[in-house]
């Protein structure tokens, strides 16, 4: 089955079903999730469609559900999960649901407003209570003070709960007739209030205030606002009127406060009884509200799914055509050819459920339109398919790069990451993600969702990194010596070799000479890089050369593979002309230049020669292009000169073949018709040729990032070891082990953040770029559109 090699074959199908069975049929198709409805009314605006009222009703119901959910969450009532996901919402259910939603909303709004009024009353009563309690003392004090002196007092007494009670009332008869205004004001506003009073009345008043200290049981209000009680004693009614207006301006609530103590006490008892009553009423209201909300919460999930399904079904019905007789609905769907049977069975099932006598008619039609691209994926392949689709969805039935990406992408990542210790940590992390997938999805964090979607990609990246780490022989920047190094230092000493004890004392650097017998055993290290390179100071000279050449080899191989895939595309689309006009010159161009480069690299690696006289491959290549054979000793093998001349000439001949062959052939075919513009064809072909030929060179150089990133990773890893862990390892005194334990924690955290996260993201990005640009521009067109079926599972996952 080639359903993953290229996208599936799709067919356009006409469906006819009865209006009564429409809901059930579309419901069944939605559960199946394999069918994309085509819009048969593309010209109509949203509010001109047939079922726009129903869609609006569904949206209104969604709004009510959101309001309900908010209220439930605010009151900390848990919402139980819903397991009845297969219920089919009938059209008549919609009316029931609608009316019950409206009722619920009204009820809840009423409860809320009642509760707010009650709370307001309660706060007022509490304030009156406090006011009465505190003004008792003020009255006594102020009366006595004013009778003594006319001086206004500036110092406000704070928190006057303990003042001496004067039992004697000073007589109020006399020229002083005190009026007062009592009220409650917000604590922050009080200083401004006092200032304005001063400015207005120049101190002809007595102001007393105290802060209300809330008791613990008074948590009926949502946010306790700090308030102050104040009493202003003034003379005269006009001033009182002004003060009243001032209080209004400051939103201070004024309360009537009786003059004498007896009336005040009576008022207080009154207020207390009312407060007790209100407390009871408020408690009952809260309980009732909680019951209503719990009952609603039990069905909340079920209702939400139902309403969503209804909305989706009505939206789909809007895309279909309704027959004149209002009895028949015509729909056009795209569906994969291999799934036609299941679609048919689903429709029959749906119409049986609705009890209609006629089964829906399924009629496949031919069309010239381009079908959507559908790649059937499972949970493993979906990650790779999505990173391919992120760049461009493939054309209909074009070769799908995803199956090859499943291997090449983790491999190119691993070449750049190349450390078996870090690879192991990454693999274990990915394993944890895979095993606890549900737990992570529940967190509903965007970043974590992205990580979870790519868990198999990360797992493969880690596995491949362990492999390349073993090849590079690099584990947290240290090498493993499993098989015994092929180099040996002892033969360098006398009598075998040139070194003596004096050589050791004199020189800072020593050079192992492989020509001295016994230094190099003749058998290379069986797997990976020899561990002696890890402690050699010229390790980078060796590794750089090796990694650069390896990157070029991998790059040319990857690109040749891409060009070969374009051949498969041409054959599938029966485009044999393009095989001769495009594929063959492209392959010959690439092979003759860059294939030969690979040959030179491999030849130089395999053949034994003295390193001082070995020619540089770069210089060889440049001289080959420039036809420069003048310098001495620049041959690797005897017949090098004629072979190279031949290859360059062949490559140069490919360029006009690519440039002119195809346009000239098209010109001959369409000489008489004016449909094709020749200028366009020549320009297009010119652009393609230049892009390909120059691209060969630049893309090959671009693959050198495989070397650059692996060098950066190795160096970062080494720096981290030397600067962090080695500091603690070199301490051998008593507390060395404790310091080592602490330093190891820092080493671990830095490894994860810098080397795993930062370097991992960087290598991921570069490997992705190599695939998207260097690999895919050899064969991939990527201008299709994705198949988006009506699927209730996908809608539920997306919410």
């Amino acid at each position, binding site marked *: 089955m080639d359903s993953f090699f290229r996208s599936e074959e799709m067919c356009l199908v006409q469906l006819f079903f009865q209006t009564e069975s429409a809901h059930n049929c579309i419901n069944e198709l939605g559960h199946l999730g394999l069918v994309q409805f085509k819009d048969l009314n593309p010209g109509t605006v949203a509010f001109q469609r047939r079922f726009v009222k129903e869609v609006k009703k569904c949206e209104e119901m969604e709004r009510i559900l959101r309001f309900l959910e908010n209220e439930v969450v605010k009151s900390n009532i848990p919402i139980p999960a819903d397991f009845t996901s297969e219920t089919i919402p009938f059209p008549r259910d919609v009316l029931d649901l609608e009316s019950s939603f409206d009722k619920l909303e009204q009820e809840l709004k009423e409860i809320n407003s009642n509760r707010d009024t009650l709370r307001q009353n309660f706060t007022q009563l509490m304030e009156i209570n406090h006011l009465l309690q505190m003004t008792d003392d003020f009255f006594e004090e102020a009366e006595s003070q004013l009778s003594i002196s006319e001086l206004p007092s500036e110092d406000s007494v704070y928190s006057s709960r303990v003042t001496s009670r004067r039992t004697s009332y000073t007589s109020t008869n006399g020229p002083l007739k005190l009026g007062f205004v009592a009220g409650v004001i917000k604590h922050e506003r009080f200083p401004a209030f006092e200032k304005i009073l001063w400015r207005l009345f120049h101190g002809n008043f007595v102001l007393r205030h105290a802060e209300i200290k809330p008791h613990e049981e008074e948590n009926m209000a949502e946010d306790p606002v700090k308030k102050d009680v104040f009493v202003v004693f003034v003379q005269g009614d006009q001033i009182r009127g002004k003060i009243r207006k001032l209080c209004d301006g400051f939103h201070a609530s004024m309360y009537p406060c009786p003059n004498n103590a007896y009336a005040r006490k009576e008022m207080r008892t009154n207020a207390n009884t009312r407060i007790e009553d209100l407390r009871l009423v408020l408690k009952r209201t809260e309980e009732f509200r909680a019951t209503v909300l719990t009952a609603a919460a039990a069905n909340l999930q079920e209702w939400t799914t139902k309403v969503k399904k209804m909305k989706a079904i009505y939206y789909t019905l809007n895309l279909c055509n309704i027959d004149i007789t209002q009895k028949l609905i015509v729909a056009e769907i795209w569906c994969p050819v291999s799934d036609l049977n299941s679609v048919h069975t689903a429709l029959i099932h749906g119409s049986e459920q609705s009890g209609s006598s006629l089964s829906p008619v399924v009629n496949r039609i031919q069309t010239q339109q381009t079908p959507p691209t559908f790649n059937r994926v499972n949970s493993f392949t979906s990650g790779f398919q999505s990173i391919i689709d992120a760049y461009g969805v493939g054309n209909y039935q074009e070769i799908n790069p995803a199956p090859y990406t499943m291997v090449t992408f983790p491999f190119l990542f691993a070449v750049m990451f190349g450390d078996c210790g870090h690879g192991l940590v990454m693999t274990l992390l990915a394993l944890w993600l895979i095993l606890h997938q549900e737990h992570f999805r529940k967190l509903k964090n965007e970043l974590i969702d992205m990580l979870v979607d790519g868990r198999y990609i990360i797992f493969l990246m880690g596995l491949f990194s362990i492999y390349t780490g073993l090849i590079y022989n690099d584990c*947290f920047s*240290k090498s493993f010596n499993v098989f015994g190094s092929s180099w040996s230092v002892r033969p360098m000493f006398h009598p075998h070799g040139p070194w003596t004890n004096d050589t050791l004392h004199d020189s800072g650097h020593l050079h192992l000479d492989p020509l001295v017998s016994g230094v190099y055993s003749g058998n290379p290290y069986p797997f990976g890089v020899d561990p002696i390179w890890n402690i050699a100071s010229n390790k980078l000279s060796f590794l750089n050369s090796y990694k650069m050449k390896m990157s070029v080899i991998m790059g040319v191989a990857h690109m040749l593979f891409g060009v070969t895939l374009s051949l498969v595309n041409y054959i599938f689309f029966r485009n044999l002309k393009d095989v001769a006009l495009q594929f063959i010159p492209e392959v010959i161009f690439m092979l003759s230049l860059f294939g030969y480069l690979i040959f030179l690299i491999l030849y130089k690696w395999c053949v034994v020669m003295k390193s001082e006289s070995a020619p540089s491959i770069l210089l060889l290549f440049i001289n080959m292009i420039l036809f420069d054979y003048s310098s001495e000793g620049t041959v690797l093998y005897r017949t090098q000169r004629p072979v190279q001349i031949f290859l360059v000439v062949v490559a140069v001949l490919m360029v006009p073949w690519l440039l002119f062959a195809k346009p000239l052939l098209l010109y001959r075919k369409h000489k008489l018709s004016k449909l094709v513009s020749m200028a366009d064809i020549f320009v297009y072909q010119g652009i393609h040729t230049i892009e390909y030929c120059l691209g060969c060179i630049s893309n090959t150089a671009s693959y050198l990032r495989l070397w650059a990133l692996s060098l950066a990773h190795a160096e970062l890893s080494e720096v981290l070891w*030397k600067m962090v862990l080695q500091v603690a*390892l*070199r301490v*051998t005194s008593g507390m060395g082990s*404790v310091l080592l*334990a602490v330093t*190891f924690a820092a080493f671990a955290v830095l490894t994860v953040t810098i080397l795993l996260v930062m370097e991992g993201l960087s290598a991921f990005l570069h490997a992705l770029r190599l695939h998207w640009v260097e690999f895919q521009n050899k064969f991939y067109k990527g201008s299709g559109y994705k198949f988006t079926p009506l699927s209730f599972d996908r809608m539920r996952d997306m919410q």
Partner: protein
Amino acid sequence: MVSCLFCGPKLAACGIVISIWGVIMLAMLGIFFTTHSAVLIEDVPFKEEDMHNDQESLHAIYGLYNQVGYNCFIAAGIYVLVAALSFCQIKLNHRKEYMVR
């Protein structure tokens, strides 16, 4: 009984991950040091004088290797304790979650 819970679930999870990693990696490092692996030569704090003392130099260097190795083992032991502590914290966190419900 006084509640010994002093870190949340995330800190405890981090603790146990780092502890397990520390135990494994430090134990392996300890083994490699005590078997005198040549690759780890730069992590051993030998001084110039040790190199010049012809008779004892090899044993001195091996002695230093062993010292660093034992340091690694002790640090691994410390991490075993930290792992046990983190595990206790995780268990207490789980229990607290169930009790509040």
